[in-house]
């Protein structure tokens, strides 16, 4: 990898952070050696889903070949082994995000389900006069989100507000793609019951500062939820450090399989929440009249859970930990600095979001003048370069910048400056076809 210099005055790799051996990492990802349309694969779509290292694939294969059984209900040996593997994965995830207890880690289908779980807890509580008042909503109450949310952190709250009569309010975005905190004290006020915001934007790449917002939330006594789907895979995330109440993220963006996500919730709050889905495993006792419910996390994990997926996620966490989240963060920062610099030099290219590699992640959205993102993506694909095009499930953000769609490049631990060079060269071909 070509050495990259950051802007003067910017923080650099700490001396205690070992640089990544990218070639060694790439060797762990079998897919990276395949070809696409006769070219070497250049995978720049990890914000969509990440690729999987051999270690994750192997862990899941081994689970199916040697330990497969249902969890939490079998007395036999395989059931015991499966249960230990599933709960072991929960403990790994808990350590990874510095959760005070593994019982605060709820496995869901994905981040979307994790956010919906909290939204449905509010809905259930709002229908039950004896429920915890922190979750009860009605007309006059407010929920605050931001204009840079993924649809998964918009639609559940829109539905909840429609159903309870509460009001949904939004933080705006500045022209530079930062959160506009100028209306903070008005937006978050004593009527606010919950603030749910993205930690790192999936479209602009912006890494949001949370401390001022957090302090105001605590001042008014609201709850604080973070969508960390684009943060947990890329940087150290400490749920205690953020002092959040809920944190949602997904397995498949952090080298794990699809089909598993995580809701971390403060134990005391999870215990106060009504169930989400009803069914097996989430009950304490069931009679024909009524049921009582298990303690968290089981209360929120109805039915047979994604067992092999949990094993895979556990292996992904082991892999990320072994590489080192600080190293991954700094690798991406250096790579992002290089990509921003190279992309800015492409004629007609406009970047949406922060233009400097500070306070942002390795996701870069752009517009190429006169060429629709679909066409950009198609020509890039012909060169083996995989990017995402469209509104990225963040349509309000696109509207904010006056575009129906963007082309999005997202970088991860296995990407290199050479791949950025291939991208930039392929953009020349785009301009050739449509120029």
């Amino acid at each position: 990898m070509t050495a990259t210099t950051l802007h003067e005055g910017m923080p650099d790799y700490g001396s205690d952070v070992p640089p990544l051996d990218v070639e060694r990492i790439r060797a762990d990802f079998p897919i990276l050696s395949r070809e696409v349309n006769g070219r070497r694969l250049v995978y720049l779509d990890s914000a969509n889903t990440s690729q999987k290292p051999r270690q994750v694939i192997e862990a899941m294969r081994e689970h199916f070949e040697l330990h497969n059984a249902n969890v939490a209900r079998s007395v036999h040996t395989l059931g015991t082994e499966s249960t230990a593997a599933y709960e072991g994965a929960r403990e790994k995830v808990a350590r990874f995000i510095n959760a005070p207890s593994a019982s605060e880690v709820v496995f869901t289908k994905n981040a979307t389900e994790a956010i919906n779980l909290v939204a449905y807890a509010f809905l259930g509580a709002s229908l039950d006069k004896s429920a915890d008042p922190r979750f009860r909503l009605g007309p006059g109450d407010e929920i605050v989100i931001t204009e840079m949310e993924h649809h998964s952190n918009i639609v559940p709250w829109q539905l909840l507000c429609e159903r309870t009569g509460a009001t949904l309010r939004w933080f705006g975005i500045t022209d530079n793609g930062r959160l506009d905190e100028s209306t903070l004290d008005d937006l978050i006020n004593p009527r606010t019951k919950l603030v749910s915001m993205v930690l790192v934007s999936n479209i602009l790449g912006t890494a949001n500062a949370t401390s001022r917002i957090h302090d105001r939330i605590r001042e008014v006594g609201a709850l604080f939820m973070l969508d960390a789907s684009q943060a947990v895979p890329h940087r150290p995330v400490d749920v205690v450090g953020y002092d959040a109440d809920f944190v949602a993220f997904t397995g498949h963006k952090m080298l794990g399989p699809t089909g598993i996500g995580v809701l971390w919730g403060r134990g005391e709050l999870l215990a106060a929440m009504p169930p989400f889905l009803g069914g097996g495993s989430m009950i304490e006792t069931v009679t024909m009249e009524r049921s009582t419910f298990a303690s968290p996390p089981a209360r929120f994990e109805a039915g047979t859970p994604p067992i092999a997926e949990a094993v895979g996620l556990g292996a992904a966490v082991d892999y990320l930990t072994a590489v080192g989240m600080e190293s991954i963060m700094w690798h991406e920062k250096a790579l992002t600095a290089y990509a921003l610099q190279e992309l800015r030099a492409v004629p007609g290219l406009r970047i949406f979001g922060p233009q400097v590699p500070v306070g942002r992640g390795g996701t870069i959205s752009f517009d190429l003048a006169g060429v629709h993102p679909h066409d950009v993506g198609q020509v890039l694909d012909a060169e083996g370069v995989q990017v995402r095009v469209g509104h990225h499930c963040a349509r309000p953000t696109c509207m904010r910048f006056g575009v129906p769609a963007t082309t999005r490049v997202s970088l991860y631990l296995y990407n290199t400056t050479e791949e950025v060079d291939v991208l930039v060269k392929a953009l020349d071909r785009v301009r050739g076809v449509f120029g």
Partner: protein
Amino acid sequence: MQLEQLYQEIILDHYKKPRGRGLREPYEAQVRHVNPTCGDEVDLRVHLVDGTVADVSYEGMGCSISQASASVLHELMVGRTVTDALSRVDRFTEMISSRGEVVPDEAVLDDGIAFVGVAKYPARVKCALLSWMAFKDATVQALAAEGGAA
């Protein structure tokens, strides 16, 4: 599959110089069709006179395939009987959904045959079909309105 087969000269020409673009009066039906996966949109009006397509006018935003396809649609349909026009929509749909199995007939589809390459790119099929589905929808609505008025 070569990229050039997808982005044929005919398609790029219609994209850069769209025919019949803009919403016009009079019209009997107007529809908006969107492609929710990519945000492409088309607003399309149909004007029918005595069972003939007198005008197809449209406005929209989207990729080269979706925009060029609206332009080709306009050129192909204006002046045809409604029955003929709708049958050509079916032939276009058949070609574009065939994964490249159906050899298109230029006599039926005119410049529409340029989209045969799109059939091999499943992700782009919806782009090519957007305005054609909008045209079918608007025409059916216009006919229904006509029937209702009679």
